[in-house]
């Protein structure tokens, strides 16, 4: 075990504080409270962080411009849902089809082991969602990864939509319920623990922890020799090949791992949203994650996490008032006979403001908020500002 540098140590401490505060916050904030939006945003933000990081692995670290993320997320979400709807509810979900898959992991393990067993069942379903997604990504990758740059983007974009079309196809209805939403599967409420009549809310913590585990695995991969090979491919394919790096094998590896986490992320999204409707997983969803990756910095994991949090908080919470006619008291102002609250802050205006903010970021932070550096780098930078003599070579090998 290598000794952590002080900058890394600070980052780890920050993470621990973050997770403890998640548990505390969840006990303090009642679901009816206005501040509950904070918890909801944190939940969605952490799932989006995992999805953004998995996309960054492909687009940022391996340099494969792939746009099929929404399709892979859908496979994960659908797989999770199918394998976790309790058998008793299946008739209510599959209204127009006779369902074929009669397995529900949370139910099996829940009956076997009681409360904690259900968690194991949920975990198994999530991992299965990732594996199924990775398998399909492997098959898609066989033809697609032989293409480069723009062609790859177009092909993956197409496959993302094809996947959605196949899942919505009537012929698949007995498995995927066709275009109808899947629902009633194991949801976030099941993550709460009741001890002595008092219920501990652990939804936010659990979702954030699951995402964090995924992100940590990707981090380990990126810093390993595989990660170096990925970066070498991104920088120069011919030179990488001349170094003996097997291009196709590594691209396929990166593609499958990225898709595995897209699948698990999709499963978490399903848990978060409560229903899975294939129509939501359109190409537009991929662009949201592309936006997060670019916003945070292509090739920076902590950048993607920060980008995801900012994106979710801004679009779901901070700017919401712009749609509903009340924003920081500005709604009372009338300019040129136009009342801001009634005539400007109407449905859709949030997106206008959001786009302007993104344009500013792209203009003034051309390489994203973090560039291709990670958080410990900035911790070091801030610390060296306060120190009279900055220490040279502070980066950990």
């Amino acid at each position, binding site marked *: 075990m290598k000794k952590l540098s002080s900058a890394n140590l600070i980052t780890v401490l920050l993470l621990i504080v973050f997770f403890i505060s998640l548990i505390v916050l969840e006990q303090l904030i009642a679901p009816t409270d206005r501040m509950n939006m904070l918890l909801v945003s944190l939940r969605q933000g952490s799932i989006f962080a995992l999805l953004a990081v998995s996309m960054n692995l492909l687009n940022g670290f391996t340099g494969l411009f792939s746009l099929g993320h929404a399709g892979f997320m859908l496979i994960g979400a659908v797989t999770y849902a199918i394998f976790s709807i309790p058998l008793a509810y299946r008739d209510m979900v599959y209204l127009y089809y006779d369902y074929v898959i009669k397995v529900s992991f949370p139910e099996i393990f829940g009956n076997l082991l009681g409360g904690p067993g259900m968690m194991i069942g949920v975990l198994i379903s999530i991992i299965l969602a990732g594996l199924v997604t990775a398998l399909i990504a492997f098959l898609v990758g066989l033809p697609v990864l032989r293409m480069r740059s723009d062609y790859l983007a177009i092909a993956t974009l197409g496959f993302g939509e094809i996947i959605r079309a196949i899942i919505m196809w009537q012929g698949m209805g007995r498995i995927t319920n066709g275009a109808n939403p899947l629902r009633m599967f194991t949801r976030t409420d099941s993550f709460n623990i009741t001890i002595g009549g008092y219920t501990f809310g652990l939804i936010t913590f659990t979702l954030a922890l699951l995402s964090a585990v995924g992100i940590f695995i990707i981090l380990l991969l990126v810093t390993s*020799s595989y990660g*170096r*090979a990925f*970066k*070498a491919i*991104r*920088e*120069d394919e*011919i*030179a*990488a*090949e*001349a*170094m*003996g*790096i*097997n291009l196709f094998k590594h691209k396929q590896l990166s593609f499958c791992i990225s898709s595995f986490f897209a699948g698990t992320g999709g499963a978490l999204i399903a848990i978060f949203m409560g229903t899975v409707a294939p129509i939501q997983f359109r190409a537009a969803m991929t662009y949201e994650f592309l936006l997060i990756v670019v916003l945070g910095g292509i*090739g920076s994991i902590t950048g993607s996490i920060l980008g995801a949090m900012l994106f979710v908080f801004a679009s779901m919470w901070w700017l919401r008032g712009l749609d509903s006619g009340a924003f920081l008291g500005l709604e009372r102002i009338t300019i040129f006979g136009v009342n801001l609250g009634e005539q400007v802050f109407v449905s859709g205006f949030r997106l206008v403001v959001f786009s302007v903010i993104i344009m500013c970021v792209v203009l003034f932070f051309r390489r994203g908020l973090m560039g*291709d550096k990670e958080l410990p780098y900035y911790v070091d930078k801030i610390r060296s500002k306060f120190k009279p003599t900055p220490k040279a*070579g502070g*980066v950990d*090998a």
Partner: protein
Amino acid sequence: MLRIEDLKVNYGGIEAVKGVSLEVPQGEIVTLIGANGAGKSTILRTISGLVKPSGGKVFFNDEEITGLIPYDIVSKGITLVPEGRKVFPDLTVLENLKAGAYLRKDDIKPDIEWVYSLFPRLKERSWQAAGTMSGGEQQMLAVGRALMSKPKLMMMDEPSLGLAPLIVKDIFDIIKTIVAQGVTILLIEQNANMALQTANFAYVLEVGRITMTGQGKELLNNEEVRKAYLG
């Protein structure tokens, strides 16, 4: 060590290499000189597996390696220093060196130290992004990166390209040092003067064919070579 027999390479109907045979003995510097478009780079790219030949055979230590993929060829001990350096610009110098040792599973620390001792400049810049270094430093890094795979044969594609004469001299001095340490070198150059002075043996390539062979020093004094390449 390396033997090529009647190698032919096509680029979509155009025959770039029209039956070339050459040999690189162990522990020597062999150079291929020739004008633009003579097919020099194509030969190197074919040996390293980046291009598939349309005919002929390549042997390495009496084992046929024709048409193998680059991965297998690098693991047999042949490394290419690509034309125009091609360092990984956004990776640090150290990361570039580690990427060069990608196929090795053993301890690479002593070799990093060895490369740093060959090129002390790289050690100073170990944390710098490779793309921000000067051309000469990048060429040093490209050579160092290739050495990290512990090659038996190192092929260099125009190491003097776009470098100042003084730095070119440095690079060629380093080549001699590397050979003294047991690495065989196949060198391609347009800078015929420098290449012929360094090489033990030389081949002159013209539009896909070998037109002249001989000792480096011998060709340096040859009237035809002087006229065509040395001016």
